[in-house]
């Protein structure tokens, strides 16, 4: 089987994985990358404590870091894709230096650039995000490829001290778009209103 076909056979499905992640961490503050992970999170249910990106590619993990440092008592869950993370790989080194115990990065890895026509990403050729994060110094790193891995590692992702990164290999599939609010000021203001004391 060549690289192009391989991820079409992966057993885990992205919408179910993302829903289970959110259900396992109902109190978490959520940042998503642009594109499919934003649609996945919205398909599971829009919430003011979710900040989905529509652009700023490569920025999701670093937004998560700034939030995790500002809110050390709350769990911060970044759900992003392989293509989005590839554009900001240096951020893994920056996160590892800060060592935020409350930060979880879930990489929904279908080995494709979904929004541009499902072209292969570097992970289709073997680039391993968990190995990169481990090398950077993340506290816990996992590669999840099937339901057994998922059942084993989900409780750890939901509760163990981080920084954690899980690469979750999911099937390459084109799914219906489920769009979150698009206005950036609205997304920012509702997020702050949901988690911060009222401004005086």
């Amino acid at each position: 089987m060549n690289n192009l076909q391989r991820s079409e056979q992966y057993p885990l499905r992205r919408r179910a994985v993302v829903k289970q992640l959110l259900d396992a961490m109902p109190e978490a503050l959520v940042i998503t990358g642009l594109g499919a992970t934003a649609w996945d999170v919205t398909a599971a249910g829009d919430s003011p404590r979710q900040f989905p990106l529509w652009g700023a590619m490569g920025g999701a993990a670093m937004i998560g870091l700034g939030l995790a440092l500002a809110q050390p008592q709350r769990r911060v869950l970044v759900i992003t894709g392989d293509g989005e993370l590839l554009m900001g790989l240096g951020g893994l080194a920056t996160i590892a230096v800060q060592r935020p115990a409350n930060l979880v990065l879930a990489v929904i890895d279908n080995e494709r650039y979904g929004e541009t026509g499902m072209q292969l990403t570097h992970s289709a050729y073997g680039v391993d995000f968990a190995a990169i994060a481990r090398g950077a110094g993340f506290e816990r790193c996992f590669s999840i490829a099937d339901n057994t891995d998922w059942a084993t590692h989900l409780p750890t992702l939901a509760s163990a001290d981080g920084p954690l990164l899980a690469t979750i290999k999911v099937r390459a599939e084109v799914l219906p778009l489920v769009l979150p609010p698009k206005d950036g000021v609205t997304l920012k203001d509702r997020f702050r209103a949901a988690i911060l004391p009222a401004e005086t």
Partner: protein
Amino acid sequence: MSNAAWPDTIFEQLLAHHVQQVAYVPDAGHSQLIERCRAHADMITVPLTTEEEGVALLGGAWLGGQRGVLLMQSSGVGNCINMLSLTRVCRFPLLMLVTMRGQWGEFNPWQIPMGQSSEAVLQLANVLTYPVEHGEDMAATVDAAARIVFNGPSAAAVLISQRLIGAKTFGK
């Protein structure tokens, strides 16, 4: 005020404006300020691998209720451009303190293109710019920029002249 004191006046302004996250790419011009921030118990200092990480980081900081600053040199301005769309679309506050290269007595010609275009590039990206030529103007300029940034919210960059910092000479 002597020129050598301007990093201390910036530090005092950052404290006065309750800046808590200090993101930076190491820079000779900012070295004294970075050390003061690192030594302060209530500031979180975040060394970056590239400047656009700081733009995203400080957006996250604001989502979580904290103010931040991005310390960088002018060669990093171009690295930030697409990430500044996050700042603009979401109207995040962003305070950038930029030490200039390629501007005044520069030894290294490779610094000149980005140094010469930094202010125009920032303005195109909707970032207000405040050049500072003299140390005695530093406190008032950083204060004014921080007020515009955090009261807006807006994005603003204080451009610290290479004449004030002193050009790196490579021993020549």
